[in-house]
């Protein structure tokens, strides 16, 4: 998975082409930590079909708020720089995430 930060979010996601997967997580967020291994597995499984990225929002607060992310975890799909679907908090389960990925590949 491509690790994003506040300096490359713009170029990698907002100026990116096609479908891009973003995992918004943060320091000290236990649900995010629990979810990450599942996301890593999905990245392995679907990595050739979709660009997988993750952003630590603790170090990129303004970027996250700019994306209307004010709660974690959030798993989002971007298309040509626009967020087209997201799963927030309790809805961000491994099953729901895989179902969302399958819609766009």
């Amino acid at each position, binding site marked *: 998975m491509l690790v994003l930060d506040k300096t490359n979010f713009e170029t990698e996601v907002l100026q990116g082409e096609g479908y891009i997967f973003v995992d918004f997580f943060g320091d000290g967020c236990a649900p995010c*930590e629990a979810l990450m291994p599942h996301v890593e597995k999905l990245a392995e499984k679907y990595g050739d079909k979709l660009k997988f990225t993750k952003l630590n929002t603790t170090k990129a607060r303004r970027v996250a708020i700019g994306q*209307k992310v004010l709660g974690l975890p959030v798993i989002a799909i971007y298309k040509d720089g626009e967020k087209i679907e997201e799963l927030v908090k309790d809805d961000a389960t491994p099953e729901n995430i895989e179902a969302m990925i399958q819609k766009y590949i």
Partner: protein
Amino acid sequence: MSKVYDVLIIGAGPAGLSAGIYAGRARLSTLIIEKEKDGGQIVLTSEVENYPGCLEGESGPTLVDRMAEQAKHFGVEKVYDEIVEVKLEGKEKILIGKKGEYKGKAVIIASGATSRPIGCPGEKTYTGKGVSYCATCDAAFFEDLEVFVVGGGDTAVEEALYLTKFARKVSIIHRRNELRAAKSIREKAEANPKIHFIWDSVVKEIKGDGIVNSIVLENVKTKELTEIVADEDDMTFGIFVFIGYEPKTKIFEGILDIENGYLVTDDNMKTNIEGVFAAGDVRVKSLRQVVTAAADGAIAAVQAEKYIETL
């Protein structure tokens, strides 16, 4: 034929892990089935001050990590699956999950509870967009912004104190005119210059434009409505909700005795079905804390062992 365990435990929070530690140590073959993440509610807690042996700096996740390690040390197995159906009658109990079926001689239900929502318009829409039930997850977004905390119990006030490390101002909205939280916590809050109180009030609506920018409160005595709009420069504020819990007992409806949503047990954690026990936040009790969850788990495991001996 799949393996028949001595003990199946639903949930890997403090109650389930404690039951696992006792069952594993008693050399019972034990499987913990966890839906999502270890730890249950307590992993969302920033500071655990009142569990015996926990000193300053202990957080929910650090405490639970050690409990999980301890259970593993005693040979307890764990699987991640969500139980959707149960067959609890008879000598062989069957739990049916999304991924597989699990068989055991005894079952300990430690499925816990989830945060209770306010239930007002806008709450669901703005969850993760300003509305949160987890300060450790989301506090950092509100650095130098304003935050509202809904609730007046221990959890609400403790989390409000944690939020003062980030937010510019923390207002506690409570439906009564005094806090229910323990005196020591209350005193800390009253002495904190960042904490303010909005008494006798409930949240009627949460509004926004992609993210939260306004909250409508009702004074329960005068029925007067007040709308608080986010500061123009801030654009938003946080609303952290800690008004109690809802037990996860849906799959046991019509099978086990339930009172106000909670499972009914006797002092030995026995439910109305032989060999089925409940422990922790999921059962009817007067105090829902890590220490009582751990105690429940221990009792349930010892009782399960006794029950298995009679088979």
